[in-house]
């Protein structure tokens, strides 16, 4: 297929996944800020959300200080923020429109309807009582998009590039959501292992639709190292880093087989990252530092994306 088409599909899928990821991050930020009754450090949770979304510098350049309502606007509606939900959907749709012939009617309609409704969004939807509903809607639209292409696309290279985009972005997003907890400071009178700490971890699990899964897997109360293990190392957890990377390795391999055995640095690197996750131990991760580990993983994802692009998508 055309490199430009493959590139369009890859980024379309990434941006739809990213829109949902920002929605999930906003849900975490919102829950945490509603729970932290202490007023010592207003906006603390929202700053952590900005950092995790990789948007803190852009926000501060525009608004200067953390004001919850402005953060929300920046993360959800602001067209100047390339990672806002509205921008993600706009970019996804632009990519989708440029590769329309490669999309099934169902996939296109899921995308196009999402875009139309997003364009009609008004600032009043960010009010406290309607925000959670709106974020649920964004997540649902992203799931509808994934379901549409997974159920209707021909199993050819177009499908492989689309799915690759989804999974690469999903791995990156799970890592970022996990990192929120690192950036949220507990108030002085609240200790690690205290009530607030507990609810913050719970919010993280909820955001990746994994609270129930946690209980099914561990039959135990929430413990940070188990949560980290679930989201990083457990293959049965569909949004975990290891589960996403296993798929990425398979997809790249399927492409290589399809294209007569050609492989490049992206294939090696994906395999290496996956092996590290597959044989990794949560004790070692905590010893190394969870935040450091996650940061390194996010860098790895960036490199992997560049390698895939250089090998398949932007060949000149």
């Amino acid at each position, binding site marked *: 297929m*055309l490199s*430009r088409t493959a590139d369009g599909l890859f980024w379309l899928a990434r941006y739809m996944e990213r829109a949902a990821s920002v929605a999930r991050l906003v849900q975490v930020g919102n829950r945490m800020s509603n729970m932290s009754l202490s007023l010592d450090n207003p906006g603390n949770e929202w700053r952590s959300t900005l950092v995790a979304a990789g948007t803190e510098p852009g926000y501060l350049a525009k608004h200067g200080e953390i004001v919850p309502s402005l953060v929300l606007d920046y993360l959800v509606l602001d067209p100047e923020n390339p990672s806002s939900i509205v921008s993600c959907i706009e970019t996804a749709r*632009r990519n989708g*429109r440029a590769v329309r012939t490669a999309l099934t009617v169902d996939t296109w309609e899921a995308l196009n309807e999402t875009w139309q409704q997003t364009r009609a969004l008004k600032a009043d939807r960010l009010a406290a009582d309607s925000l959670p509903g709106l974020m649920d809607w964004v997540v649902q639209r992203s799931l509808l998009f994934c379901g549409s292409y997974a159920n209707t696309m021909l199993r050819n290279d177009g499908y492989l590039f689309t799915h690759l985009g989804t999974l690469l972005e999903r791995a990156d997003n799970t890592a970022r959501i996990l990192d929120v907890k690192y950036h949220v400071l507990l108030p002085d009178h609240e200790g690690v292992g205290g009530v607030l700490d507990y609810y913050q971890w719970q919010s993280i699990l909820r955001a990746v639709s994994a609270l129930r899964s946690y209980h099914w897997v561990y039959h135990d109360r929430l413990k940070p190292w188990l949560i980290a293990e679930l989201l990083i190392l457990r293959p049965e957890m569909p949004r975990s880093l290891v589960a996403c990377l296993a798929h990425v390795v398979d997809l790249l391999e399927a492409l290589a087989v399809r*294209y007569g055995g050609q492989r490049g640095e992206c294939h090696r690197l994906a395999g290496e990252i996956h092996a590290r996750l597959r044989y990794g131990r949560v004790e070692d991760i905590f010893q190394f530092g969870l935040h450091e580990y996650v940061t390194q993983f996010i860098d790895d994802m960036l490199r992997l994306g560049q390698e895939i692009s250089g090998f398949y998508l932007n060949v000149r």
Partner: protein
Amino acid sequence: MAKADGPFNEMGMSDEVRGPYADIERWLREMPSDKLELKRREAETLFRRVGITFAVYTEGGDPERLIPFDIIPRVLARAEWDRLSLGLHQRVKALNAFLADVYGERHILRAGKVPERMVLGNESFRPEMQGFLPPAGAYTHVAGIDIVRLDADNFYVLEDNCRTPSGVSYMLENREAMLRLLPDLCGMHKLAPVSHYPEDLLDTLKSVAPPACRDAPTVAVLTPGSYNSAYYEHSFLADEMGVELVEGGDLFVDEGFVYMRTTQGPKRVDVLYRRIDDDYLDPRTFRPDSALGVPGLFAAYRAGRVTLANAVGTGIADDKAIYPFVPEMIRFYLGEEPILLNVPTYLCERDDDRKYVLEHLHELVVKETRGSGGYGMLIGPQSTAADRAVFADRIKARPADYIAQPTLALSTCPTFVEQGIAPRHVDLRPFVLSGREIRVVPGGLTRVALREGSLVVNSSQGGGTKDTWVLER
């Protein structure tokens, strides 16, 4: 209902309904207008969801505007269509012969049937095409011939579109919408199908594969990109044919052959259905500032290593100043009398014609020879004295740029508008395919001027579309 001396109403008068419209007329009488309104809205939702939109550059507001769709179909009896179809075959055959001739031996110029100066001195004439005959002598692989009716018996050609006519996706989507929204009404009639158009198009394109192509030809659609107003159509046709939709940047020329950049490396392209204007095709041959085209494409074309459809230089056949000579072309190349009529046309560069035009501006339609899309037009009866003064000056300054025609009382069809069901003026654009043979899908795109009394049907000027039905019985 229009008065008996008004324009020809294709449905007929209430006391005398024309045959093909019998069931439609009854259906309209029984249909409450709120139900029609509901159907109209359903159609709009459908079109928006599928994304069938058309960008209009001059307006602010919605960058992806819908072309209004009228749910009352326009109907032609099979016998009417058969005659029209014969006329279209004949006309397009002559246009292709004319193109081969003016870029070849120039018999028609030497015979004095078309003034040499008007061809060779025309901006639409491409000297680069001289001495090159494309495969099968086919130039205008897709032609949109705009037809109007003034009465029950005659079809007139308003203009020929031989470059990159658009609108066929609306013809196809309109039918889909009708089948979905009004299945009962469709079922009452025996409709000639249109949905095989993309297959016919693909066959046509494959049939003109270049001499250098030995295997099954690879076809692609070349688009200026997703910001082009007709992008939906480009992607729709590529999708329906199952071929790649490429932009200039996806292609490159190597050792005289054209390739697309794919995830598996370069892949050769044999036939390009290009929806980019001649000027932008190849910066090496045409406009050097074009970022849409492919350097070296034209040389590959002339070397017989890729086929461009439509051919380069077809603009000389649909030029408004050449239009009056088409009946003569039919006689000259085919030895036949034209089946379709031409609208009488005054060429302002001729002294007698210009004198007449300037004296009768209030009753004529004046068009720029290079204009299209309904821009740069004067409709005499609807103009002000000031409008006419402006055009008179322009005509005197650059007479060769203008032609004039009598204001035609275009036929009307019942149309659902705000005031209810009312007659509105329509035209018809059938799409004629030329490869090794000529084919026409029955029907075409009916365009309707939604404003009362308006004669301008162009979508860029607020016109709408209708499904066009050819009844098998």
